[in-house]
């Protein structure tokens, strides 16, 4: 089979090369991991009409159509224009062309757990937030892996993303409503950080320093003595990644930031990436970009133009712990160190 296919061009159209020559896989974004179920019919149609009849649930919550023949790609691109229009433009207010498939690689979908539209533990509406974040990061050739979790359980595994966004609540203790049953103490000890204890008069004392804001106390309180402050707060983890060389877990960059702060910070990612890569987009993990620039530079650029809310705290420094699959993988000649910023 004589094929002359520009793989890179297709990749930027969100088509992934298969080991089967001439076949490709489409990865459809689902920002916030929730869409109207009606789209499933469309996906089924694509799989059965142009794909190999199978469907793959993408590792980043994309809808994957494997086994599409190279020559069918234009037809599929044409068919998904409605999906792109409805999911990207209408649902997320993304400004993009929709008539020739995805305008850039879409596989780094913004993932989200089900959030507080369903989950009794979640602290905010993850879908709503994902839809606000989507136009800040897509479509762009500077890619970012982001995952949203409704609570510090982090079912969305934000700890292994460039940005892990975790919903937290500032709790209010209504002293006079407390019956001193100790349910919150047990729940906090069992599920969270154990910051609650009895006072001598059988009320609750809290070590506020180490409260992770999960809201377990409110969930178990029989008397409504613990409630969440109406303002939503977030913990932002950065630099988490998987990978062959040095996977690592993300660490807290920001704690107790409001949505406004969060959106401004994430809005700065494009500028930061462009500076690190000197305006030459490369498909790299965000964590590597942070490494190249150094945390201080990252912090400086990501917080540009941000007015932090009074409750917000920022990591002064970050000490990641990497799993080095080859010892001293980082210890290399200075000349081989990746450079950030303007190239000569």
């Amino acid at each position: 089979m004589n094929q002359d296919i520009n793989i890179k061009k297709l990749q930027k159209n969100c088509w992934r090369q298969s080991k089967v020559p001439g076949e490709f896989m489409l990865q459809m974004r689902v920002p916030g991991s929730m869409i109207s179920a009606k789209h499933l019919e469309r996906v089924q149609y694509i799989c059965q009409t142009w794909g190999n009849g199978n469907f793959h649930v993408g590792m980043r919550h994309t809808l994957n159509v494997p086994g599409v023949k190279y020559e069918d790609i234009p037809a599929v691109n044409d068919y998904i224009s409605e999906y792109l229009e409805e999911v990207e433009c209408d649902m997320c207010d993304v400004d993009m062309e929709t008539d020739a498939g995805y305008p850039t690689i879409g596989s780094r979908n913004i993932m989200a757990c089900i959030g507080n539209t369903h989950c009794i533990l979640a602290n905010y509406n993850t879908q709503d937030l994902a839809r606000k974040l989507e136009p800040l990061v897509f479509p762009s050739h500077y890619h970012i892996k982001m995952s949203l979790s409704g609570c510090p359980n982090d079912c969305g595994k934000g700890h292994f993303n460039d940005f892990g966004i975790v919903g937290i609540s500032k709790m209010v203790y209504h002293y006079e409503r407390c019956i001193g049953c100790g349910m919150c103490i047990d729940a906090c000890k069992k599920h969270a950080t154990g910051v609650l204890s009895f006072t001598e008069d059988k009320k609750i004392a809290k070590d506020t320093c180490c409260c992770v804001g999960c809201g377990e106390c409110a969930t178990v309180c029989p008397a409504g003595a613990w409630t969440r402050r109406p303002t939503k707060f977030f913990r932002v983890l950065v630099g988490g990644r998987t990978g062959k060389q040095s996977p690592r877990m993300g660490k807290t960059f920001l704690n107790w930031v409001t949505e406004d702060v969060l959106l401004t910070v994430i809005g700065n990612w494009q500028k930061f990436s462009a500076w690190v890569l000197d305006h030459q987009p490369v498909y790299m993990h965000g964590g590597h970009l942070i490494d190249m620039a150094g945390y201080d530079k990252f912090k400086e650029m990501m917080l540009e133009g941000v007015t932090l809310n009074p409750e917000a705290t920022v990591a002064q420094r970050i000490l990641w712990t990497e799993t080095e699959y080859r010892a001293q993988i980082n210890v290399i000649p200075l000349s081989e160190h990746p450079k950030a910023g303007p190239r000569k």
Partner: protein
Amino acid sequence: MGYRLSYPEADELFRKLSAEYEIYAPKLFEKQGRYSDTDIVRYDRVKRAEEIVWDRKSDFSAKEVVSPITQTIFYFTEDEYRESRTGAKKLLIFLRPCDINAFEHQDKIYLENGGIADVFYQRVRDRVRFVLMECTEGWDTCFCVSMGANRTNDYSAAVRRDENGLLFSVPDPELAPHFAGNREEPFEVRFIEQNDFTVEIPEIPNKDVLNKLKKHPMWQEFNDRCISCGSCTVACSTCTCFTTVDKIYDENAHAGERRRVAASCQVAGFDCMAGGHEFRTTAADRMRYRVLHKVHDYKARFGDFHMCVGCGRCSARCPKFISFPATINKMAAAIKEIVAAERQ
């Protein structure tokens, strides 16, 4: 004859009444629910008629107005003590028929049981006037009709809400003059005659059946289902149990206050005696105790009615979806089974 008041007119009435009365009603507390972005309705002071919540059953009952969850009953220093003070105004409580009937049981326990009237209850209760909120629909957790608690004559005023505002009838001559001058309109209060859920109220014929019922396997399921959190009893309109706690002021160990704090027979340790002996050590034991108390023991002691008024707040607040009326039905079936076996 009744009185028709628009909301602005009702606000004006409330304003005038406030010289003599404190007005309590079910009020919405936004985003203070057990789960994120859920609201809660509980009793609190209202200044405007529109603050009263009609379209939802209050999560917590009106008993909190008279016997708050936490209440200081006296202060002490060395060899002296002083009773806590209480307000002088009368309390106008907006509540439904089941809630008014629940107060009969509250009164029985606090004022008659043991032949001693509880002063801390009485000093508030004497100042209470009921405003009956007409209730003809109820909610899916209601079973007041089965418990015979759907009607009452014990109210100073009754009120219906409709699209034109509020319609009052004011049988209490003490309250009536405040309404004079408002537009007159015929109004006869109606009561709910049927709930969605019907409960078979069991009669336990003799002590032998009661003892067999206590050992019946029907209670075992609650060891798996009930988490002994006490949400049911805190929300219950008829539960009266409390404990006392001394608060010793940190700076001066010779001074402090004694408080009354709501307690729950569902929470482990409730019946723990000096020496550590407990009567009911499992969730099933505690559940059995509560159910029998509400639909057998209380009536056996006081005669006329079962304690439970079918307000259904216990079911509505249970985080594990244990339905109290369904449990009563299970108990009725178990009693039938025991009685049938005895006959054989």
